[in-house]
């Protein structure tokens, strides 16, 4: 199958990107500055991320759609205000996770941002559960551009006046060159920032205008170190069909209103796990010294019995040391528990630690 390219591909090339294939797309892993400089620039200034490979699913409908989506997502969508977003999951009956997503209530329906590798399958799953009753559109004509970091609000507001009034996890339509953009204050770096849904034809010019104001393009390499420092899950690593939101320590994303009555796909399992406790749970892990423990590294307790596995591990540029996340048996999940990580045949000391590794700086509103 031919590799897909986003509407910013030429701009990436012009900016000396190194490319990798990711979910069928040719995506920039880094630019000439390298992962560490790009990471630090995002934390101190503003980074631009091309996330056009992600799915932008528009579902159109009214109150019936809201009720039907409540049978799928563990959210109180009836009481969700228009233009407000929630983090959620698409699950199977066993509460295994098909995908994690951000859903935003629009005037005439919902916008759901899906992972690139899952988007087509998600579309099928949703369309089937909804019995094809609603108009669903997995957008091909829109790019998705994120701007993240302490300077993001200032830079973006110069280009799109008014975005500074959005608060974390809210969005709105804005005018840009006679076209409508949908902007949300959200992201995947632990920094304040925005995601902008924009027509493909305008994406390059729009991105260049952000660069002119001092933002820089950042690759997927730094996107990964940034999200890991922020303690955020990556689908296919922390999350998959064999993990539930309770095991992933994402109970906070399940609306309390929905836990008493259930009635969403996977609710029996979730309610049961919350009551009984999950066997394994996602934790933050800090290796001692400089050792990096990558995905699939086996985790042992102090008496060298296996207790889990790492799901993501790298060097955290803002922490200036190695960081990881993984799953361990519940009884070893307490902060400061001493564990061992087996890397290249040797066991190295590490500690369970609090997440996130890096303190988030979101601009929160009243809700």
């Amino acid at each position: 199958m031919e590799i897909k390219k986003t509407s910013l591909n030429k701009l990436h090339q012009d900016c000396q990107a190194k490319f990798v294939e990711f979910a069928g797309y040719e995506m920039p892993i880094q630019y000439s500055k390298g992962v560490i400089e790009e990471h630090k620039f995002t934390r101190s200034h503003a980074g631009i991320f091309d996330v056009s490979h992600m799915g932008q699913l528009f579902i159109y409908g009214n109150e019936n759609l809201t009720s039907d989506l409540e049978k799928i997502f563990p959210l109180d969508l009836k009481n969700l205000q228009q233009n407000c977003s929630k983090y959620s999951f698409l699950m199977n009956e066993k509460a295994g996770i098909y995908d994690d997503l951000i859903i935003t209530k629009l005037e005439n329906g919902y916008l759901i941002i899906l992972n690139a590798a899952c988007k087509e399958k998600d579309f099928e799953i949703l369309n089937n559960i909804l019995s094809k009753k609603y108009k669903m559109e997995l957008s091909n004509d829109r790019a998705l551009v994120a701007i993240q970091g302490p300077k993001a609000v200032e830079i973006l507001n110069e280009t799109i006046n008014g975005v500074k009034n959005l608060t974390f996890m809210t969005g709105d339509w804005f005018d840009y060159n006679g076209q409508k953009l949908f902007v949300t204050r959200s992201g995947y770096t632990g920094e304040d920032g925005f995601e902008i849904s924009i027509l493909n034809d305008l994406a390059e010019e729009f991105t260049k205008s952000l660069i002119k104001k001092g933002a820089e393009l950042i690759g997927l390499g730094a996107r990964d170190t940034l999200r890991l420092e922020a303690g955020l899950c990556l689908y296919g690593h922390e999350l998959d069909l064999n993990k539930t939101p309770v095991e992933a320590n994402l109970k906070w994303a399940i609306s309390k209103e929905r836990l008493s009555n259930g009635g969403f796909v996977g609710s029996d399992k979730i309610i049961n796990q919350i009551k009984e406790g999950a066997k394994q749970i996602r934790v933050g892990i800090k290796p001692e010294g400089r050792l990096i423990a990558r995905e699939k590294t086996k985790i042992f307790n102090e008496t060298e019995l296996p207790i889990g596995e790492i799901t993501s591990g790298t060097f955290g540029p803002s922490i200036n040391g190695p960081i990881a996340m993984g799953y361990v048996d519940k009884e070893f999940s307490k902060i400061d528990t001493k564990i061992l990580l087996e890397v290249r045949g040797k066991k190295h000391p590490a500690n369970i630690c609090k997440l996130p590794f890096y303190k988030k700086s979101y601009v929160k509103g009243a809700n």
Partner: protein
Amino acid sequence: MSDVKFSKEHEWITLEGDVATIGITQHATEMLGDIVFAELPEKGSNVEKDGTAGVVESTKAASDVYTPVSGEVVDINQAIVDDPAKINEDPEGAAWFFKLKMKDISELDSLMNKEEYDKFAKESSS
């Protein structure tokens, strides 16, 4: 000091008397990206030609470091273990990896000179 020789695994090597100094090439560091971890062989240990003699890790992945010749490890560069970013700064100078007392100096014969290596590196990365 002798001329610099290069291996297909992207190590460089120089010889002074029977002691070889070994590191990884500029080209290797460009391929790896930012290096954030380095592990070196133990001083006093013996390593075999083409065997692993250390590890470097970038933000993305771990890679083995091979030794292009056999010998006893007589010195290691602790500075690059303490601050692996030094490897990106000066890979073919201050950021050498380890020194070996060579057993068989003829092992150098099969390695590439600078011109051959540059050609090899260019071809292998395209």
